[in-house]
C-alpha cells in the first residue's frame, strides 16, 4: 500500500491511498502486460463469513482531507501499513492538531498499536518509562517487530505549506 498527498496552487487537494497488499500482493506477474496482480480478496479473511461477486472487502485505507472552519488551513493526510494505518494516522493527527507537534515530528513519533486481540505493541523508540507505567495500569504489552506504518501528509497553515513524506519508507516530499 502507498499513500500520496497533494495540495495544488488553486487550493484543490487530493489524498489517495493505493494498494497492492502485503509485499507484491498475490505474487503473480503477468508477463504479457508487465502488471503485478494484487491479493485483495485476502482482506475478507476473518472479516466476513461469505463473499458476493462485486463486493469490496473491508479496508483500513483512509485517505483524509481536513479543512479548518476558517478555510485557511488544510491537512491532506493518509497512510499505509495494513491494520496500522488507523493508529498511525490517528496519532499523527492528534500529535499535530492537539499535542502541538510540528507535522514532521507528529509523523515521526513512534506509534502504539493495539492489535486485533487488544494486545498493545510499541514501535521501536517509544518512551520506555511510559511503557512500564502502562503495564502497571494493566495493559497487555507484547513485543512485535513488523511495524509497516507510513504516513504522508501536506499541510497549509497561515499561508505556508509543509509537506512530509515518512522517513520510515525513505520518502521525501517536493513542492515549490
Amino acid at each position, binding site marked *: 500500500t502507498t499513500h500520496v498527498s*497533494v495540495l495544488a496552487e488553486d487550493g484543490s487537494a487530493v489524498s489517495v491511498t493505493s494498494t497492492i497488499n502485503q509485499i507484491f500482493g498475490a505474487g503473480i506477474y503477468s508477463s504479457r502486460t508487465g502488471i503485478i496482480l494484487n491479493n485483495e480478496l485476502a482482506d475478507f479473511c476473518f472479516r466476513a463469513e461469505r463473499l458476493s461477486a462485486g463486493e469490496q472487502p473491508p479496508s483500513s485505507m483512509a485517505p483524509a482531507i481536513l479543512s479548518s472552519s476558517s478555510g485557511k488551513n*488544510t491537512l491532506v493526510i493518509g497512510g499505509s501499513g495494513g491494520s496500522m494505518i488507523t493508529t498511525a494516522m490517528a496519532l499523527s493527527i492528534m500529535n499535530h492538531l492537539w499535542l502541538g507537534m510540528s507535522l514532521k515530528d507528529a509523523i515521526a513519533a513512534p506509534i502504539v498499536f493495539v492489535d486485533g486481540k487488544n494486545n498493545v505493541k510499541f514501535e521501536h523508540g517509544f518512551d520506555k518509562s511510559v511503557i512500564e507505567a502502562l503495564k502497571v495500569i494493566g495493559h497487555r504489552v507484547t513485543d512485535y517487530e513488523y511495524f509497516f506504518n507510513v504516513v504522508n501528509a501536506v499541510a497549509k497553515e497561515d499561508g505556508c505549506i509543509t509537506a512530509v513524506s515518512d522517513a520510515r519508507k525513505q520518502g521525501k516530499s517536493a513542492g515549490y
Partner: protein
Amino acid sequence: MSKYKPWQICCCLCIGLFGAIIFICLCMLVFGVFIHRGCSEDTYQHAAVSADSKLCSDIGRDILQQGGSAVDGAIAALLCTSLVNPQSMGLGGGSIFTVRDKTGTVKTFSSRETVPQSFKADLLKGCPTSVIFITGSQWIGVPGELRGYEVVHRMYGKLPWARLFEPTIRLAREGFPMPPFLGSLLNITLIGNLVKATSLCEVFCHKNKTVLGIGDTLKFPKLAETMETIAEQGVDAFYTGQIGLDLIQDVKAAGGTLTMEDLKSFRVRVEDAWTVPLGDYQMHIPPPPAGGVMLAFILNLVKGFHFTPRSMEEDQKVLTYHCYIEAAKFANGQRKSVHDPVFNTKKDASHMVDSDFADRIRVLISKNRTYNDSYYNITPSPDRFG
C-alpha cells in the same frame, strides 16, 4: 546655491522627497512580505506533493508546475510509485481518492478491487492464521486502479491524459537505479525467496535467477509498452481491449478465475465524503468499507479528552497514552461494523462517526485501569500488515 532659481530648488526637494517615499515603500513591501509570510525555510509557498519517494514526489510536483491539477499530480506520482515501490501498488491493484475541489466540495472515488463473478467457493477456508504471504491466483480481485484514474482525471484533470504517463514510461523503458527501500526488501531472505519462487522473478531477478539488489538497474520494458498503449488509447485498452485479454490469459494460466466480463463491468464508486467535525477542523473521509470510520471513531473519543501540548509533559504523558489505548481498544470492538454496505444489510457504520456515540463510549474509559477483552466487545482477529 544662490545661482539656482527657487523653482529649481523646489523641484530638487520634491524629487528627493518622492525618491525617499518610494524607497521606504519598497523596504516595507519587501520586509512586509517576510513578516507576513513568516514561513520557515523548509516550507513551500504554492503547492506540494508527499509520496513514498523523492523521485515520485518530484514527478508529481513537476506536473503541478506544468499547470496540472492536484489530481494530475497525484496520478503522475502514483504511476511513478508503481515502478519505485512496485511491492506496494500498481495497475493490478486498486485505490481510494479523496478529492477537494477549489470550492471546497469533497468527493471520494473508490476503485478498490471487487470479487469476480466466479471465485473459489471455499476461499475463506484458506485464510492463514499466522503472519505469512497470502499468494496465489485465488486471491485476485477485479483490478480497478486505472478506471479510478480515468474517472478522477475526467472530473478534475487539466493536463492531457497522456502527459501524466510520460515521466514514468521514460523511467520504465530507460531503467533507473534500484530504489534503496525496494533493494533492502529484496535483500530479506523471506521476500527474496517469494520473488524467486514466482513469476515476479521475470522482473526482479538477473538472468541467472539471483534476485536484483542495490546497485542494479531496474527496468520494466513490458509495463512501459502497456502504459504507452493506455496513455495513447485510454483505459478501455485495459478494460475491454487487448491488454485486458492478455492479462486474463496470464491470470487463467496461473489458475485464476478473472474474465473479460469482470473487467468490462468494473465500476468506480463515486460518493460524497463523510464529514466529521474535529474541533476547529472538518475531517473528510471515504465511506465504508474504507477504514475512515475507524479513524473518526478514535479521534472522536480522543477529542473529548481535550488534550493540549501539556498532555505530553512527564506527569500527563502516561494518562494521555492510556486514554488513547483505551480508545483504540473500543475501536477494535467496532471493526465488524466496517463492511461493504452494498452487500451487507447488517447494521452500517454511520454510528462510528457520531459524536454522541463517542460520548457514550468515552464514559466507559477509566483513567486508572483497563479491562478484559469482553468489556470492549472485540472479536479477536489477526491483523493485516498491508
